[in-house]
């Protein structure tokens, strides 16, 4: 299982920086100018096989179809709701895409302003028009618990390799945690534990660049919540 990471050091690059001049292909967030690959966002230089690109450090969430996201209802129409999913544009949720039979004009009985919802991105078209659905297993209105907002670019860090970070968080804090690809995270559990889980998530966001982050987060949670049972590393539930 000792798969060495392709990226050597975490080299921070900014837009315009030359990523490669030896003939590699541009990966994500990179472009070619005069035969040289350059960065188009600030982030970490990332080499994958013959391509070089940038993993962004910040930036706005752009939905991709299939993403699971958490959003908040910000407007209600007679046959749809507008959901803020942290993208540049609100996402319309049509009455045909919810698990209930909703009469025309009766939308607010089912979902009100400020309600949080777990959705899936159905499609994103050429002009970035988004469609979302609540018709899939697990998708629902979310009630209780806490919502934490982090940068969507740090979501992969919260989940980490095959979910190791997130399952550790869940196990150690005994919380239910749902991570939206858009950086919205829902945490539910006993008050004190949820507090610690929220702090730990914020810490992951802040220290995403740090080495041995999993170990540091583990220590942090242990210092806050003395673990009664032995923490089991292999429980890979999602």
């Amino acid at each position, binding site marked *: 299982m000792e798969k060495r990471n392709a990226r050597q050091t975490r080299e921070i690059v900014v837009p315009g920086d030359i990523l490669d001049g030896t003939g590699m292909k541009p990966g994500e967030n990179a472009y070619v100018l005069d035969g040289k690959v350059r960065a188009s966002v600030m982030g970490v230089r990332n080499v994958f096989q013959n391509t070089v690109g940038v993993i962004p450090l910040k930036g706005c969430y752009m939905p991709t179809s299939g993403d699971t996201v958490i959003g*908040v*209802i*910000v407007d209600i129409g007679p046959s749809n709701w507008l959901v*803020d999913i942290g993208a540049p544009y609100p996402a319309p949720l049509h009455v045909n895409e919810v698990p209930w039979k909703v009469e025309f004009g009766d939308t607010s009985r089912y979902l*009100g*302003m*400020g*309600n*949080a919802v777990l959705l899936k991105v159905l499609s994103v078209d050429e002009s970035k028009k988004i469609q979302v659905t609540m018709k899939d297993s697990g998708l629902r209105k*979310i*009630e*209780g*618990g*806490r*919502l934490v907002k982090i940068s969507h670019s740090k979501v992969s860090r919260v989940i980490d390799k095959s979910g190791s970070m997130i399952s550790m968080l869940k196990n150690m804090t005994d919380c239910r945690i749902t991570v939206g690809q858009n950086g919205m995270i*829902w945490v539910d559990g006993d008050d004190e534990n949820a507090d610690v889980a929220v702090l730990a998530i914020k810490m992951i966001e802040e220290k995403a660049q740090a080495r041995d982050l999993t170990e540091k987060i583990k220590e942090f949670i242990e210092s806050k919540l003395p673990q009664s049972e032995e923490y089991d590393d292999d429980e890979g539930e999602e």
Partner: protein
Amino acid sequence: MSNEIMSEIKRDHIMNLLADGKRQDGRGITDVREIKVETNCIESADGSARVKLGKTEVIAGVKIIPGTPFGDTPNIGVLTTGAELIPMAHPTFESGPPGEDAIELARVVDRGIRESGMVDVEKLCIVPGEEVWMCFVDIYALDYDGNLFDAANLAAVCALKSAIIPAEQYGKGENTPLPVTCTPISVTEVKVGNTLIVDPDYDEEQISSARPTVTTDDVGNFRAMQKGGRGSITLDELSLCLDRAVEIGAESRKIIG
């Protein structure tokens, strides 16, 4: 002060915490966030201060120029306070001329300064009936995380305390410090449910009903008040606000020196 849809979950969480006397950032009900003041940060101003109240940040600058007095007060200097909620400070602030929120903010700060007699405007006369010093205080919100009222008050007061009358520049004698007599401090609270909390942050303001501001002077007398927000407060609650304004005002006065 602005309209953004807050998730019900966040609202419930804040309410639940308050029920136990707790707040999102760990403060108690009457705790003021950390106050940081940097004065004389703008050389082009005659007095200036940049104030941070937690994550809320405000800059105030004072410009003092000779001008004509008002007809009914020929020997008295002029003091005006303006405020702008520039779009830099928050995603819901829009550019354009000051709206009602900015004007209310400026007027509440202005009242505290004016009614406390902080600036001795009678000493701002240059030639009776003809020329007086006109003192402009301009306040800009740079980062908005609630309680612009107290942040703006602190910035304006600190800027005035650091101000110098630029008499030499206009050939009116020697430069002298602006005559300042006291330090008016405002204390703003918001009512969330039935709890009054001091120095609200953005989220707390969003779910609040009433927003009382009470400004006191150095001896603890009241100099200005404003009840903002659509809610109401009881007489007992008002009495609590007054007590807190005196106590917390004195603390803040010590911090800014």
